[in-house]
């Protein structure tokens, strides 16, 4: 039985808890969505990019004369051209800097080297073949551990004299001495090494833009696939010197983001420069190889963690040391105070007396990044480590992993729970979620089946992951991107005839904002969600916001929508009091109308009040019915869940088959259950994918070995498990509507359940851990080594 949010509105109004069909879908199912590639502007030209074959090389010269002589070719832009305007480097959102185009050195394979603009896309594609770049290869540094050695070549000599090494930053959290002491006093310390490889979000739509500079008006329209359009506008203004008021960033429909459309890419800057130069709209659309080879990657964390335990299986402390490979630039999009994101949520769902976490960032000759892959700032890395470690610890003290978790979970009565790394978990009931998952999957029977199969030599495993997410960045005292505080915004206007528009600072890429934000307004104001238009993605009209990533839309802008609605409701109360000739305090708000207490026949609906706001408002009151809210969350929200996975392994081939996967999620109150389930289905699939299939690897020269979808293996419908979902509901106590956010929970929670299941299947052979992706060849090699295959 699925837990449900109690309905406050009728299905016609469609407030929270109603599975309303999505308002955005009619255009998509008819092929009338408008994605960046669909946008055609008058007089538009195309850009294509020359890329480096080398991962590290000096550029001796660039000869573009042949390309410039080709039909339709209008311009070739190189790093030297940009250098003259001071545009050859740009800031990253993590406070590092990144080349737009290199002046003399390329730092990774497929790096942008020159941009070619031509009348048509076919001409541009031909011309990039005719730009001759003379390179002198340099030694390639790919291993972050080597990069951290004192004698390693310095990849970024451009940094200050005190930073002539490859060490980007050191970050730590928790009490080192207390943690050391806690582990020293433990009966047992269980270590684990977990490598979480490079992966790529690979949204089915790649990135692209059209830069449209009008030299007469001095105005730049920038159409782009961005998850954070306002941040782009600010960055573009800072980099280009064009006043922010003369820049409009417009997003259109976005074909999936997942974190990959947060960074500003060099191609965007090149297109802007080209448009500034030519005075014509310049369009650039990545192809898939460019997307996989050059866009910001995710993860690449080498984690070493140790968990202290008493003999009876009580956790005493956690110590974590991590090396983060950022490629040649830290182009993550983490809040300034958190260079390793929210990785220190790694204490997980457990009562943790002490913890100490440290992370170092390193440069290598790989593409820059460190962005999310459907994950709120490095939480996946944290959850995978702690959940693998907890399973291992349970095994080493001879406990069932479910029982071990139940014993060590933070109890319901301990919330708000203060963690040793400084977070205050808002609410949770971890025991209930795990118990529900155990019941759903029939845990005890599965353990019996496993014992029987093991006796017959068959390999079957059961894996649990009981994760705690941390989303909703974030409170302004600690959270900012390049200095901009991580509030988010909503602006609502109720029209005279009782319909409304809400404009928000966040940006949908498939999450269904046009529907869910209308439902929030419907919930708060009783205006039917069909009559609430949701707008976003145009910086000329939407209020300033930090955008959508890290599951922050509902926790931040969702709250803003709710608060702005309540501001409107308070004004509506005054108008209703005026219309009903009653004292405002005598009015009661229910089901979209104000009623005089004790006089159920004396009431005014929100539509009547809206009409009066423009036609018959009280003397001395401003006309209109609108409000804006910039919501600064008091805390983050902490969704959680328990997942259980059952796998069968083909001993002969090493193939892992996920037989069942049960997911019990708790994201607080639910706006649209259908959409939440959809988010979880997708999130689970993006957790499943890197666990078994996806990774970006490099050969010894730094060549990307997964540069097309022939080798970057996104799961199809055939492999993807038939997800089984359930919910518990523990509202967030500080969020206006008690919601927590859900977009990434499943991606964060799923991988360790799968890893734990595979390790569980092989644990009797002495296997302690397996790095993802758990490919058949990797599993077979283990079985072969153990003499089983």
């Amino acid at each position: 039985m699925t837990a449900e949010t109690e309905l406050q509105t009728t299905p016609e109004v469609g407030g929270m808890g109603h599975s309303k069909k999505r308002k955005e879908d009619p255009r998509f199912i008819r092929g009338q969505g408008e994605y960046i590639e669909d946008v055609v502007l008058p007089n538009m030209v195309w850009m294509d990019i020359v890329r480096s074959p080398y991962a590290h090389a000096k550029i001796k010269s660039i000869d573009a004369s042949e390309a410039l002589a080709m039909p339709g070719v209008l311009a070739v832009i190189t790093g030297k051209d940009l250098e003259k305007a001071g545009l050859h480097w740009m800031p990253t959102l993590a406070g590092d800097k990144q080349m737009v185009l290199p002046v003399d050195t390329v730092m990774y394979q497929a790096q942008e080297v020159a941009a070619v603009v031509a009348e048509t896309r076919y001409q541009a594609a031909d011309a990039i073949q005719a730009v001759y770049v003379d390179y002198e290869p340099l030694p390639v540094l790919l291993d972050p551990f080597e990069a951290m050695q004192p004698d390693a070549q310095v990849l970024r000599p451009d940094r200050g004299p005190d930073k002539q090494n490859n060490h980007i930053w050191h970050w730590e959290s928790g009490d080192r001495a207390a943690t050391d002491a806690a582990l020293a006093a433990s009966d047992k310390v269980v270590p684990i090494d977990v490598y979480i490889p490079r992966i790529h979000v690979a949204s089915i739509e790649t990135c692209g833009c059209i830069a449209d500079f009008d030299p007469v008006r001095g105005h730049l329209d920038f159409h782009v696939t961005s998850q954070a359009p306002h941040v782009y506008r600010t960055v573009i203004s800072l980099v280009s010197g064009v006043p922010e008021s003369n820049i409009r960033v417009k997003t259109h429909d976005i074909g999936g983001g997942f974190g990959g459309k947060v960074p500003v890419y060099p191609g965007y800057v090149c297109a802007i420069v080209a448009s500034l130069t030519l005075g014509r709209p310049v369009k650039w659309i990545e192809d898939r190889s460019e997307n996989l080879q050059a866009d910001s990657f995710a993860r690449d964390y080498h984690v070493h963690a140790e968990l202290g335990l008493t003999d009876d299986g009580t956790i005493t402390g956690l110590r974590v040391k991590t090396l983060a490979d950022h490629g040649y630039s830290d182009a993550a999009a983490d809040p300034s105070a958190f260079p390793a994101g929210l990785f220190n949520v790694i204490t997980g769902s457990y009562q943790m007396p002490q913890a100490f976490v440290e992370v170092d960032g390193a440069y290598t000759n790989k593409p820059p990044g460190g962005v999310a892959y459907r994950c709120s700032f490095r939480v996946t890395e944290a959850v995978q480590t702690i959940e693998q470690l907890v399973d291992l610890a349970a095994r080493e003290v001879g406990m069932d992993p479910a029982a071990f978790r139940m014993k060590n979970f933070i109890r319901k009565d301990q919330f708000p729970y203060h963690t040793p790394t400084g977070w205050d978990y808002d609410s949770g009931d971890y025991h209930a979620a795990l118990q529900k998952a155990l019941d759903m999957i029939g845990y005890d029977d599965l353990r019996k089946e496993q014992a029987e199969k093991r006796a017959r030599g068959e390999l079957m495993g059961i894996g649990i992951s009981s994760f705690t997410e941390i989303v909703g960045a974030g409170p302004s005292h600690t959270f900012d991107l390049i200095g901009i505080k991580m509030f988010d915004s909503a602006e609502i206007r109720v029209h005279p005839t009782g319909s409304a528009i809400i404009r928000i600072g966040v940006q949908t890429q498939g999450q269904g904002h046009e529907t869910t934000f209308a439902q929030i307004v419907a919930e708060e104001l009783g205006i039917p969600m069909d009559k609430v238009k949701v707008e976003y993605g145009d910086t000329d009209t939407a209020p300033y916001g930090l955008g959508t990533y890290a599951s922050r839309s509902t926790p931040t802008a969702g709250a803003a929508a709710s608060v702005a609605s309540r501001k409107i409701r308070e004004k509506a109360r005054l108008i209703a009091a005026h219309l009903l000739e009653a004292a405002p305090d005598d009015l009661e708000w229910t089901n979209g109308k104000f009623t005089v207490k004790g006089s159920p026949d004396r009431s005014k609906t929100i539509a009547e009040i809206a009409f009066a706001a423009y036609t018959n408002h009280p003397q001395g009151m401003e006309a209109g019915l609108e409000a804006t809210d910039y919501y600064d969350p008091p805390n983050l929200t902490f969704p959680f869940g328990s997942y259980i996975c059952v796998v069968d392994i083909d001993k002969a081939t090493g193939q892992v088959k996920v037989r069942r996967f049960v997911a019990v999620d708790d994201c607080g109150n639910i706006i649209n259950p259908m959409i939440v389930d959809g988010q979880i289905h997708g999130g689970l699939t993006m957790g499943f994918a890197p666990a078994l299939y996806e990774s970006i690897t490099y050969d010894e020269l730094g060549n990307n070995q997964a540069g097309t979808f022939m080798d970057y293996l996104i799961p199809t419908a055939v492999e993807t498990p038939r997800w089984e979902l359930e919910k518990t509901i523990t509202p967030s106590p500080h969020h206006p509507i008690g919601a927590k956010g859900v977009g990434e929970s499943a991606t964060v929670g799923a991988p360790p359940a799968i890893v734990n299941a595979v390790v569980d299947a092989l644990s009797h052979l002495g296997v302690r851990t397996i790095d993802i992706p758990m490919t058949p060849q990797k599993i077979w090699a283990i079985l072969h080594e153990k003499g089983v295959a």
Partner: protein
Amino acid sequence: MEFSGAVDIPASREQVFAFVTDPNKVGGCGPGVESIEVIDPTHFRAKAKVGVGFITARFVVDLEIAEQQPPDMAIIKAHGQAPGSAVDALGRMNLVDGPEPGTTTMLWAAEVSISGMIASVGSRLVEGTANKMIGQTFDCVRAKIVAGR
């Protein structure tokens, strides 16, 4: 990628050495070479269409005899580029007496680096192809020396 091998050639060490350090002679044995331009006695530029089957790329290759001890040893560097791809190679050749009098054994070793798009999308084919091209090159060298003797 590292490759090595030995080829017995029924010719003197001097003959073999002279052949393999003469771009106009050895050039004809390079894989897919379409033209050779001699820049100076130790620097050459070749244009070559290389590939497997009909899958090909046109490379411009700069070759340099980086070191030589006639008639025993030579080291050749190659640096080639095609749109989106590059190849760098360092080849070392030692000539020793062959199994029969008057013959020479060429001991060769090559370190080949392939970068860019070909290495990214063609990785499952690159090593085998490179190996084969090198083999064909030496077979050709042997055959031409024999023919021209």
